[in-house]
């Protein structure tokens, strides 16, 4: 097992290198550079050339890639070409926000998805099963950005504007934070304080809509998968044996069938996290959630080479790790499988 993991990690590192090369080549094929973003009607063209030199974009590509690679191995991902911030800082600020959103969505997906799927399987072909099949199919076929917009519309109408639809923190919290910070920087006692509960309720309110938009299509997907997996298990011999032995239906389902049915579903866990982080791209843009999704989109549109490389590599790392976790979980949960 350990050799297996180590081999996979090594291959993963090589893959990361290839991803970096791929992205770099793609960026080189574009006729535009980050300096072109400064072009505005009232920006003197001569300054564009100066900026190109300043950003080091006139050096040959191999040199630029080499420099970047060397720095990257020391975990220095340079500075954003657009805003000049250190990329590692940008990523470290955005990553926790996206992780928060993704993990909340992930928990929702698995809890509700499994519940719905198992319920459907137990009540197979009943009215609720058929109805839920259509409902899950409906939500599974839905673009997440459209769902987000519909939620915004519905919530604005229902809550009359009291429920936040943008950003991560409300005004009250932010202004309180600012006042506290200012007082502290001048050595005065803070005029107010923010309770733990208050802060997290605020974040939670802002988190709810993006998490729902992000989570509902996958819930439907997991429900369908869980349903078919559960159905497969329920027709197995050992379930029939358990029933024949006289065990109550509930015990049969929850103690025997469910665990085996969940095996393939659990292995999806590892695969969903990177999927969510990239799916967050659209949802974060709509809700203004300050996370990696927005970072990636902005960087791509502004041809911000260092940021694109760093974030794509991060995503690749997550995908590779996710696959590895899924495979490991698979062996742990299903003793019939062994990796040499």
């Amino acid at each position: 097992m350990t050799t297996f993991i180590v081999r996979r990690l090594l291959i993963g590192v090589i893959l990361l290198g290839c991803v970096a090369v791929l992205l770099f080549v793609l960026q080189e094929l574009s006729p535009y550079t980050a300096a072109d973003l400064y072009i505005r009607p009232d920006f003197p063209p001569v300054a564009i050339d100066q900026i190109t030199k300043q950003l080091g974009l006139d050096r040959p590509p191999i040199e630029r890639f080499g420099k970047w690679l060397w720095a990257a191995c020391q975990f220095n991902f340079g500075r954003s070409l657009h805003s000049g911030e250190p990329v590692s800082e940008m990523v470290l600020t955005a990553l926790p926000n996206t992780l928060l959103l993704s993990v909340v969505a992930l928990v929702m997906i698995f809890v509700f998805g499994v519940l719905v799927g198992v319920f459907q399987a137990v009540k197979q072909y009943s009215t609720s099963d058929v109805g839920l099949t259509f409902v899950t199919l409906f939500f599974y076929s839905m673009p997440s950005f459209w769902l987000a917009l519909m939620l915004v519309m519905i919530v604005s109408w229902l809550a009359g504007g009291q429920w936040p639809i943008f950003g991560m923190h409300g005004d009250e919290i932010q202004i309180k934070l600012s006042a506290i910070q200012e007082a502290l920087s001048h050595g005065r006692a803070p005029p107010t304080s923010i309770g733990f509960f208050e802060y997290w309720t605020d974040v939670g309110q802002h988190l709810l809509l993006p998490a729902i938009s992000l989570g509902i299509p996958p819930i439907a997907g997991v429900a369908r998968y869980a349903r078919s997996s559960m159905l497969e298990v329920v027709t197995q011999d050992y379930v029939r044996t358990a029933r024949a032995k006289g065990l109550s239906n509930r015990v049969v389902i929850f103690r025997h069938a469910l665990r085996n049915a969940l095996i393939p579903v659990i292995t999806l866990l590892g695969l969903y996290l990177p999927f969510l982080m990239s799916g967050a791209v659209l949802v974060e843009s709509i809700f203004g959630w300050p996370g990696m999704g927005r970072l990636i989109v902005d960087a791509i549109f502004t041809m911000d080479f260092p940021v694109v490389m760093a974030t794509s590599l991060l995503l690749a790392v997550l995908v590779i790790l996710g696959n590895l976790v899924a495979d490991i979980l698979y062996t742990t949960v299903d003793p019939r499988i062994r990796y040499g």
Partner: protein
Amino acid sequence: MAESGKIKLTWNTFPGIWQLREGPRLLGLMIVLAWMQCLYCLVFRFDRIIATFGMSPFANREGFQHWQALLTVVFVPPLLAFLGRKTPPLPRYGKSNWALVRERFNYSGTAQFGLCFIVQLYLVFFLAAYLAPMGFDTQPDAVMLRLKPPLEAGYLLGSDRYSRDVLSRLIYGSRISLSIGILAVSLSATIGTLVGLIAGYYGSWIDTLLMRLVDLLLSVPRLVLLLVMLALFKAHVDPEWLIYLIISVLAVTGWMGTARIVRGEVLSLRERDFVQAGRALGFGQIRLIFRHIAPNCLAPVIVSATLGVGGTILVEAALSFLGLGVAPPVPTWGGMVTDGKEYLTKAWWLTTIPGLLIVFTVTCFNLLGDGLRDALDPKVVLHKQVEHGLEEEAEAE
């Protein structure tokens, strides 16, 4: 039904009615609805049909669309009549392979539903020039008729901020979404199958190399890879060729799943008797691969391709939403959702209706894909099949 020389005209002669009453019902509906579309064009749009003859099919987009519609209206009704003919029931034993698949497919009402409406959508695609009330960028009155709700001022589904008809834009938008879906998936399925065949058959270093390539492309989430490629290449490309860029990029990022599936199948098929026999008989490798192994791999490819069209339509909508889709004024469903975003509360129909249409289309492809999967996989035992089998056994006794 035909008596000597006289053909009785009953309801059954209308194509599809027979299926509606006796055979696979929703397929009958499919034929009937298709017929109704063609009839609508023939009756209510006769003026446009006449006008088509004055247009050259290759001069401009409009002429091309009109001639497409004309040819459809001419050739589809006979096709429907053929499909709607009364067929004798299938024998209990000795069904051919395809007949078996068709029968299993027909067990699933939902799969038929999917097929029925996919056919309708593609028919709308081809008949766009005749069916759409007005052109997709016609602005009857940008000042007085803008932002009208559905069913007002003659707009069936409302008008947008430039007074363009939402229904017409949806119809023309279907051409983009549906064609991108089918073309991208066909291309990616082809690439994936080829790669899978080669990797599976030849094995050793070719296999390792190709599978590592698959892993590489799968490491970066598809949407991110698409964004990077589109944002970078868009500048190279003239606006008219953008749709081909999008299709290519979608194909290049979507073939990996198919390749894996096909490779798996080929690995198991490679050792089977019929392949060994072919080798013994001296068949060339190419012939073996393409004429013997490939056809047996097709079933999962078809299923994943069908499901893939739905997924591709969703991805294309997301790209249009981000502004990386086909350029305006050509409408796409995702682009219409974006345009309507600004008027979310004031003109809800601009975002809601295109979104619902996307959901509906993707649902149909998913239903069709599920139905095909159940129909094509011989190991799956269908609920209805069991019921049917029990019925027949009861009958026989």
